[in-house]
C-alpha cells in the first residue's frame, strides 16, 4: 500500500502543487482528508466537483465519503463565494445585543440568508459563532476587517459602499 500510483491533478494549475504537498505531508492517508480539503479551499476558494474527485482518488477515499465530509463542516463551501464577504457574529453576546436585526435587515435588502451569496455575486453573507470580540458586540467582519457596535444602519452603509466602489 505504500507506493500508490500518483493521480494526476485535473489541470496544470500551480495551486494543485500546494494540495499535493498537503496530501504528501499526511502520507496520502484518508485521515488527511480534512487537512487536504482545507488546502483546496484556501487555494481555490471553494470545493468544486473536479477537486473533490481528485482528492477522493488521490487519498483512496470513497467519493460519497469525501462529499459527506465536505458538507458536514461549516467552513467548507461547495459553491464559489461572493467577491466580498460579510460575516455576522451570532455569539451569545452579539445575539442579545442585536445580531438578529442585522441579519433580518440584510435579508430584506439583499434577499440572502446566512450561507448564501447575492445573485450578482457581489458578496456572501456568513455567520460565525463568536469571533472573540464580545466587548464590541454586535460585531460583523467585512472582508476580514472586524467592525464592532453594529446597527442595521451602519451595517447597510458598509455593504452599500461595496456597491459604490464598483
Amino acid at each position, binding site marked *: 500500500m505504500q507506493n500508490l500510483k500518483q493521480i494526476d491533478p485535473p489541470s496544470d494549475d500551480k495551486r494543485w502543487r500546494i494540495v499535493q504537498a498537503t496530501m504528501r505531508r499526511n502520507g496520502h492517508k484518508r485521515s488527511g482528508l480534512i487537512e487536504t480539503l482545507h488546502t483546496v479551499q484556501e487555494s481555490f476558494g471553494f470545493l468544486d466537483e473536479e477537486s473533490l474527485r481528485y482528492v477522493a482518488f488521490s487519498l483512496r477515499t470513497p467519493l460519497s465519503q469525501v462529499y459527506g465530509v465536505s458538507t458536514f463542516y461549516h467552513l467548507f463551501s461547495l459553491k464559489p463565494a461572493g467577491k466580498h464577504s460579510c460575516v455576522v457574529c451570532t455569539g451569545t453576546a452579539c445575539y442579545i445585543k442585536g445580531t438578529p436585526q442585522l441579519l433580518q435587515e440584510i435579508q430584506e435588502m439583499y434577499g440572502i440568508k446566512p450561507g448564501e451569496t447575492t445573485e450578482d455575486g457581489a458578496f456572501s453573507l456568513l455567520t460565525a*459563532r463568536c469571533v472573540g470580540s464580545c466587548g464590541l458586540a454586535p460585531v460583523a467582519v467585512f472582508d476580514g476587517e472586524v467592525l464592532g457596535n453594529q446597527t442595521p444602519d451602519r451595517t447597510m452603509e458598509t455593504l452599500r459602499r461595496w456597491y459604490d466602489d464598483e
Partner: protein
Amino acid sequence: MNEQFEQITAKEQAAAAKFDNAVHVCVAASCLSSQSDKVLETFQQQLKENGHSASCQVKGVGCLGLCSRGPLVAVSHRDRPESSELYQHVTPDNAPQIVAALVAGETAADLVCATDTPFFQRQTKIVLENSGHIDPERIEEYVAAGGYQGLLTAVTEMTPNDVIDEVMRSGLRGRGGGGYPTGLKWTTVAKADAKQRKYVICNADEGDPGAFMDRSVLESDPHRVLEGMTIAGYAIGADKGYIYVRGEYPLAVARLKKAINQARRLGVLGSGVCGTTFNFQIEIRLGAGAFVCGEETALIASVEGKRGQPRPRPPYPAEYGLWGEPTLINNVETFANVPPIIRNGGDWYAGMGTAKSKGTKVFALAGAINNTGLIEVPMGIPLREIVYEIGGGVPHGRVLKAVQTGGPSGGCIPEAYLETPVDYESLQQLGSIMGSGGLIVMDETSNMVDVARYFMEFCMTESCGKCVPCRVGTVQMYHLLDKIYAGQATTKELALLEKLCKMVRETSLCGLGQTAPNPVNSTLRYFRQEYLDLLLDGERVTAVATTPEAQP
C-alpha cells in the same frame, strides 16, 4: 538542558535591562480586531523618530484582559516600577500622545485605564500568568518566565507515576466543562494496553458561543499548552499528540505552528525531549466548523478525517480512542494548568479553591456587563463578586436578571443565587454547569424564552444528525419555543416542550443532545412565568417579579 534555560533567561534579562521603559501592546484577537497591530507599528515608528528606540522596548503581547477597553497598551519603567500605566482605547492617532508623555517622563492622563480596580486586583493568575507579559512568538521569553521547567523536572527527575501522582494531588479537574478529575483520566490511559501506541489530544475546538478563553491562551501563551501536553505524554506513555484547533482561529494556529517549531529546535519537543530518551511529536489538526467536535468521540472521528459524529461511550477514549488506541483528551485550559502544578507541586495547587474544585478558572465575561474581557479567579469565588466587582456591574443603570454559564449545555442562574460559589457541584445544583468558561450576563431587557430559543437554535444547527432525539427533537423544541415566543402557543404546547426536553436529555447519543434541553429547563425552573405570560391561555400573574422557586 537546565544550563541552557539559565543562559536564555540571563540573556533575556540582560536584554530587558538595557531598556529604561517598556511598551506592551496587546495583540490578542479582541484588541487586534480594533487595529492594535497598527498601534504597535505607530509606537515603533514614533519612538524611532524620537530617537528612543534604544531605550524603550516595544513589543506585542498576549491578552491584557479588559477587552472592552481595547486596544490596551501597558507601559512600564525600570527605574520606577510602581508607576507603570495601562492605557485604554489606544489608536494610531493617540499613540503619539503616549510617546510624548513617556519621553517627558509623564503620564497621558486622559487615556489611562485605572488598574487599582477589582478587575485587576481580584484575579489570581495561573493559566494567564504570562498572558500580557511575554511575546507569544518568542520561546525565549517563555523560558525566561520559568517555562519548560516543569517539563524538565518531569522527564529528568520524576517517573511517569510521580507525575500522575502530582496531578492527582493537585485536584485538577477537566476544564472543558465536565470536571472529570484529570489525574484519574491520566491513570486510566496510563494503565490501558495499547496495540501500538497511545495518543494525547488537546481539545482546542472551543465552540461555545461567547467563549474565548482557550483562544486567548493559545494566542497569548502557546508554549504553556505544548509543555502541558508533553508532560501528559510522558506521564501516560504516549509519543504523539494532536492539537485540534478551531479553523476559525487562524492567529492561534499560526502561533502554535511557530511555537512547535521553536520547541523542536530548543529540544523540548520531538525526539529526545530535554536530552532524555522520551520522544514526543505534536501535530496540529484544523477543525472545520462543527460544534459537536468538542465531544470526545466526535473529535476523534474528525482527527481521523471523517465526519465528526460521536459514538456511544463506553468504551471511553481512554481505552479505545484515536485509531482504536488509548487516548488522553484534555482541553486547552487543563493542559495549561499542568506546567505550574509540576513546577510548584500538587499541594500548592490544591491550596487554592474549594474542597472539591481546586485551583483557578478562566472566564470570558460578556453580555450586559461593564468590564467584558478575560478573567481568572480562584474556584469558590461567589458569582456576585465576579459580576459586580470584577465585572463592574450592569451598564446603563439596568438590573441584572441572570447569569448564563456553560453555553448551550448550561443554564441561567437568577440574581437570587448570585452568592453561589463558583465550583462544579454548586453550579450543577442550580441546573447549570461550569462549562468551558463562557459567562454571559443578562439584564432585564433579555427575555428568557428568547434566550432558550437562541440556544436551541444553536443545538439544532449543530446537531450532527446521527441520533433521532437530537436530530429531530431539537428542531421540534426550537419550533415550539419559537411559537411560544411569538405568543401563538398554548399550555398544551408548553407541556409537549417539557416532555420532549426529558426525552431528548435521556435518550440522545452524546453530550450535545443530552444537554441541549438544559437552557430550556433552567429558564423554566427560574423564569416559568415568562413562558406563561406568552401563552395564549397561560396563567398570568400581575406582579412582574418572578420569585425563583428553590427546588431540590
